[in-house]
C-alpha cells in the first residue's frame, strides 16, 4: 500500500509494511488459534485425564489409559470401519459420476443452465431437510416410493434403513444424490478452462469424440481430479449429520460413524477424556489420508 502511494518516507513505509502482513492476517489467525489450535491442544491434554462432563475440573491424570482403552475397544474399530466404508462407497461414485455428468452437460448448448441447475440443486438443500425427505418419504418402510418401485419388479424390498445389511448403502445413496452437485460444478469450471483450439487441433488430427475425452479432456482435468478427490475423502471421513438424523447410527449400530462415537461418549456419556482420544485418532486418520494423497498427486505432477 505504501509503495503504491509513494509519498511516505522510506522509514515510515517499511514500518507500515512490516505490520501490514501480520495485521491483515490477524483477524483470521486469532480465530484460528482460538477455535482450532486451542481446542486441538486442549483435546490432546484432556486425553490424559478421566474428565467428566458432569463434574467440574479436568478429572484425574490417567496417563495413556484412555489410549489403551480406545485401541482395545472393538466399537472404535467398528465405527472407524463404517467411516472408511462410507468413504469408499461415496468417494468413487461422487468423483466418477461428477466427471461423467460434467462432460455430458458440457456438450449441451441449449438449456445448459437448466442441466447445471438440476444437478447442483440438491446440494443447496440443508442436511436436515435431506434427512427428513428420505427418512419419512422416499426410504420409508412399506409406504415410501423406493419400496413401491422395487415391488413393481416383483422383488420384495428390504427395509432400506431398518436392515443392517442395507442401511449403509441407503445412506451412501442419499449422500451421492445430495452432494454430487459440488464436484459437478468443480468439473464444469475446469472443463471450461480447456481451450477450444486444443479440441479443434485434435479433431483435425483425426481424434474421435471418445479419444478426445480419454486423451485430452481427462488428462487436462487431472489437477481438478486431485482436488475433488481430496475434498471428497475429507468430507466423507467427517460424515455425521445425515447419519445422525436418518438412522441415529442404527440399526444395530451398523451405520455408526466414528464422529458419532465421539458425540455419544463425549456428550451423552460425559466421558470427555475418552472422547478426546477418539477424536484425536480420527483427526490423525484424516490428516494421514490428506497428506498421502497430496504427496502422491505432487509426485505424479512432477513426473508428467
Amino acid at each position, binding site marked *: 500500500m505504501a509503495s503504491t502511494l509513494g509519498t511516505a518516507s522510506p522509514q515510515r513505509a517499511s514500518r507500515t509494511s512490516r505490520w501490514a502482513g501480520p495485521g491483515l492476517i490477524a483477524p483470521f489467525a486469532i480465530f484460528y488459534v482460538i477455535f482450532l489450535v486451542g481446542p486441538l491442544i486442549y483435546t490432546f491434554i484432556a486425553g490424559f485425564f478421566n474428565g467428566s462432563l*458432569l463434574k467440574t475440573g479436568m478429572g484425574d491424570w490417567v496417563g495413556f489409559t484412555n489410549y489403551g482403552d480406545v485401541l482395545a475397544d472393538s466399537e472404535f474399530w467398528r465405527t472407524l470401519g463404517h467411516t472408511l466404508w462410507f468413504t469408499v462407497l461415496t468417494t468413487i461414485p461422487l468423483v466418477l459420476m461428477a466427471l461423467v455428468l460434467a462432460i455430458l452437460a458440457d456438450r449441451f448448448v441449449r438449456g445448459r443452465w437448466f442441466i447445471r441447475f438440476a444437478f447442483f440443486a440438491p446440494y443447496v438443500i440443508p442436511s436436515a431437510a435431506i434427512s427428513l425427505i428420505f427418512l419419512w418419504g422416499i426410504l420409508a418402510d412399506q*409406504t415410501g416410493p423406493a419400496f413401491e418401485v422395487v415391488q413393481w419388479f416383483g422383488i420384495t424390498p428390504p*427395509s432400506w434403513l431398518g436392515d443392517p445389511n442395507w442401511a449403509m448403502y441407503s445412506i451412501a445413496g442419499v449422500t451421492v444424490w445430495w452432494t454430487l452437485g459440488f464436484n459437478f460444478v468443480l468439473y464444469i469450471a475446469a472443463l471450461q478452462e480447456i481451450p477450444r483450439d486444443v479440441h479443434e487441433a485434435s479433431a483435425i488430427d483425426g481424434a474421435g469424440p471418445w479419444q478426445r475425452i480419454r486423451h485430452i479432456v481427462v488428462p487436462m482435468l487431472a489437477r481438478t481430479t486431485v482436488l475433488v478427490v481430496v475434498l471428497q475423502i475429507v468430507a466423507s471421513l467427517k460424515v455425521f449429520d445425515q447419519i445422525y438424523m436418518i438412522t441415529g447410527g*442404527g440399526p444395530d449400530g451398523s451405520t455408526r460413524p466414528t464422529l458419532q462415537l465421539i458425540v455419544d461418549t463425549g456428550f451423552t*456419556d460425559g466421558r470427555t477424556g475418552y472422547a478426546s482420544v477418539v477424536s484425536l485418532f480420527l483427526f490423525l486418520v484424516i490428516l494421514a489420508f490428506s497428506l498421502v494423497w497430496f504427496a502422491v498427486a505432487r509426485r505424479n505432477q512432477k513426473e508428467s
Partner: protein
Amino acid sequence: MTDHALSRRGLLRGGAALAAAAASATALSGCGNTIAQGFTGAPPASRRVNFWNPFTGGDGARMVAMVDAYKKAHPRNTLKATTFVWGNPYYTKLSLSAVGDRPPQVAIAHLSKVPVLAEAGLLRELREDELAKHGMTPDKFDTKPWKKAHYGGKLQAVPLDTHPFVLYSRTDLAKKAGLLDGDGKLTDLDGPDKFIDALKAMQEVTKGFGLAIASNKDPSTQFRLFYSFYRQLGGTPLVTDNGLTVQVDMAAAEEALAFIRRLATEKVVPTGSDGAGAITMLTTGKAGFLFDGVWQVISVQESKVKFDMQPVPRIFSDAPYACFADSHALVLPKASTEEAQRLDLSLQFCGSLLQSSAEWAAGGHVPAWLPTQQSAAYKKLEPQSHYTAAADGAVYDPVAWYGGAGSNLQVEVGDATIGALKGYLSPKAGAERIRSELKKLASVESPI
C-alpha cells in the same frame, strides 16, 4: 497515509466503543435477557421461572395448555417454557446447564433418569414440609412413582404420571375375530399359547398381521417389550449396584427372546415396521393389536377407529405381574444460590401442573396425582382409565448411569431383541449378547 492509519485506528476505537456500549446495554437491561444470563450466570428476574421439557407432538400441546393455565392463574409471575428434543440430547443439556450453574428452575425428567441426576448431585433435594406448603402431601401421590422419586432416602422429584407399555386393540376387528366376551372385553390373552391363538384369530380378520410392533429404528420399543416379558418370567433387574454389577437371568432372557422370535416365525407380527408404521398398521386395519406406549393414544384416536387399550397381557406367570413403565416427574436442578433456586415459586408451579393432571391424563399418561386419578371424571375417560392397573405392575428401567429413557442400555438390549425377532440372533445368542454388552457398559468408569 497517516490519515489512513489514523482513520483505521479510529474505526477500531469506534468499534470497541460500540461493543462496550452494547455490552453495558445488555448488562443494564439485566436479568430479563436470557442471552446475557448465559454469559454472566446471573439469576433471571425475580418472579420468573424457567421450565424445560422434552415434549413435542400431542404431549407438547398438552404441556403448553397446562403452562397457560398456570400463567392465567399467576399473571404476576413470568414463566418461560422451553422445549427440547426427547432422549439423550435433552439430558445432556439438562446436566450441562446444572454443571455450568445456569439450570432452569424446574425441568421434566423421567424417573428412570432421576437416580443418575441425583447421584451426580445435580438435583435440589426436596423436603416434605416444603412440598406441603403448596398442597403436595405424600398421601396425594400414587405410591409407586412416589417411591421411585426417592433416591438415597431423599425425595428428588415430584412425580407427574406413570406411562406404561400397553396393548392397543381394534374392538371392531376383535369382535369379528370372536375375541370379545359379552361385555365387549377381550378375553383369553394370558399365556404364550393363548396369546398367539388370539393373534392368529385376529390375523384371519385383518388378512395382514395379528399384532403390530415397531422394530426398525426403534430399539427402545423392543427393549420395553423384552423387559416386560423378562420381568414376568422372574428375571432380575439386568444390572444392580447402580450399574456396576451385571446380573442377567440367562434362562429368563432366553425364554423371553424365544417367545419374541416365535411371534415372528408364526408370522403374526411384522418384522420390518417402524414406529409410525406400526401405528398405521393398527389404524388401517392391517393389524388388530399394537404394542406401544400409552402416549400414542392421541395418534390412534385421531384416526377415528374403534379401539381399546389394556395392560400388557400376562404372558408368563413365573413372577408377579410386570410391564415396562416410566414416569415423568418435575425436578428442581440445583442452582448456585437460593435466589436463583426460587424454591417456593418453583414448587408453586409444580403444584399448578399437578392440578392440571386431568389435561395430562387425556394424553394417555396415568396421573400420579391421586385427586385426579381417583376422580369420577378420570374414571369416565375412555380408554385412558382402562389401564390404570398397569401402573401397579410397573417396572422401571434398571438403575445405572448408562440406563433410563433413550439410554445406551435401552439401545443395546433393544438391538439384541431386534436381532432375535428378525432371526439373525438365536434366543441364546441374544441373551448372551445382552449380557456381554451390559458387561461392557458396566466396566466403563462411571462419569458421575
